């Protein structure tokens, strides 16, 4: 099950109100696009969902339970995974190790088991490695498995972020600008990948993006934020023609 409900969420930074009573839902199995002008509060909302920011008002529930009392490291356990706009990878580690790091919270060996290298934990380790290998296969990362992340082109790092997020088997995946720095072909590929994730892994996706081609193509529904408030919500077609959205965000070209 996966049902996210954002209810009148307020976040302030000093005098700046980054989120001003935002409400919307992300039902199971849907791909919801979240768009809006720069500084509208999209990443701030993601940071609330992964409990990095304190919420000053309203509530966020996942499967009916408020997540606001949970610590950040519990978010992967309850099934919420994410990628980061500014890429939060371990630069001095290889691609494989970065992906393995994403699997850590779900591994069952336990600290003592690991330290003593008990058979159970070794089996667990093998399982994690196999899973990482599969994910690298799936995201075309096998060729760079042993390369340091600092040396990879940007687009590859973005794929790596997705692979790492998938390591913890999330039910809800938050993607913050996954298409940044990708060319047309690569965006096409990404679009297919996002659909694939939903269909094969039964994922629910919340997608922040400025690449309208991608958002309009993959989203079932689109939510528009502007100055910390919800400006509009609807199907991609409705949003494309929404006069206020055109005015505030898309411009004539949109």
């Amino acid at each position, binding site marked *: 099950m996966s049902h996210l409900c954002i209810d009148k969420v307020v976040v302030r*930074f000093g005098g*700046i109100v980054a989120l001003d009573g935002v409400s919307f839902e992300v039902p199971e199995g849907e791909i919801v696009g979240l768009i*809006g*002008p*720069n*500084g509208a509060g999209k*990443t701030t909302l993601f940071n609330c969902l992964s409990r990095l920011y304190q919420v000053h008002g309203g509530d966020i529930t996942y499967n009916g339970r408020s997540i606001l009392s949970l610590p950040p490291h519990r978010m992967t356990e309850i099934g919420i995974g994410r990628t980061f*706009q*500014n890429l939060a990878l371990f630069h001095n580690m290889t691609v494989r190790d970065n992906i393995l790091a994403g699997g850590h919270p779900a591994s069952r060996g336990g600290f003592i088991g690991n330290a003593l290298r008990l058979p159970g934990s070794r089996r667990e380790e093998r399982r994690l490695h196999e899973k990482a290998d599969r994910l690298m296969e799936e995201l075309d990362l096998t060729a760079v498995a042993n390369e340091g992340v600092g*040396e*990879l*082109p*940007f*687009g*590859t790092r973005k794929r790596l972020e997705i692979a790492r997020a998938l390591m913890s088997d999330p039910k809800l995946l938050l993607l913050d*600008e996954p298409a*940044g*720095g*990708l*060319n*047309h*072909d*690569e965006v*096409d590929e990404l679009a297919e990948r996002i659909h694939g994730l939903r269909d094969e892994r039964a994922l629910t996706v919340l997608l922040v993006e*400025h690449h*309208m081609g991608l958002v309009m193509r993959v989203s079932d529904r689109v939510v528009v934020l502007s100055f910390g408030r919800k400006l509009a919500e609807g199907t991609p077609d409705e949003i494309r023609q929404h006069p206020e959205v055109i005015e*505030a*965000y*898309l*411009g*004539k*070209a*949109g």
Partner: protein
Amino acid sequence: MTHLLEVNDLHAYYGPTHVLSGIHFSLNKGGITTILGANGAGKTTTLRALCGMVTTKGQISLDGRRIDGSACEEIVRMGVAHVPEGRGTFAALTTEENLKLGAVTRRDKHGVTQDLEHMYSLFPRLKERRKQQAGTLSGGEQQMLAVARALMLRPNLLLLDEPSFGLAPLIVAELFEILGRINREDGVSMLLVEQNAELALDLASHAYLLETGKVVLSGSAEEIQEHDQVRRTYLGY
């Protein structure tokens, strides 16, 4: 027309990794040239090589003067501004301090103050956030800051590494309009790397296609736009 920038047999290395293997290209004075290429082709490395941020071999001349081997800061002082990949924000400093740093080598105090106001009028969002620590700006706000900071140098040559990165569609359109205007009115030459190939080819007069560290195609923007492979991979029609 004379060439502002001429690059001959340029190689670039990250330690032992050989990334550019002998590229040639040139940029007309007052012109805009764009470099297309897939993920990892070496576009960013090319821009870095031009302003001395990576080890290079080969010749780079700016306005007839050899600049290969010069230190990055000295090349910048010759009027080359760079909007780097990853934005290069001074995270602990304020938005305004970041902008002032763009003009830190300029001596015309009055002009700098004027340009600061001009940047604020181009990007009103930055004005609202002028006293904010730049590291806390949103991704797109930091991108605007990176572009504005580069413009504060009043460059002769502007190196743009994906200037539209993370910007909302409306702002992207505005940005390209601004770039076009600056090119026409102030005669600033530009070398543009941009994933949105349609916009890039619209703005530029010349284009190069880079594949794994080699130039595989070059010509006027119109010619490149008509090229089959470019159409399929970068334009999608």
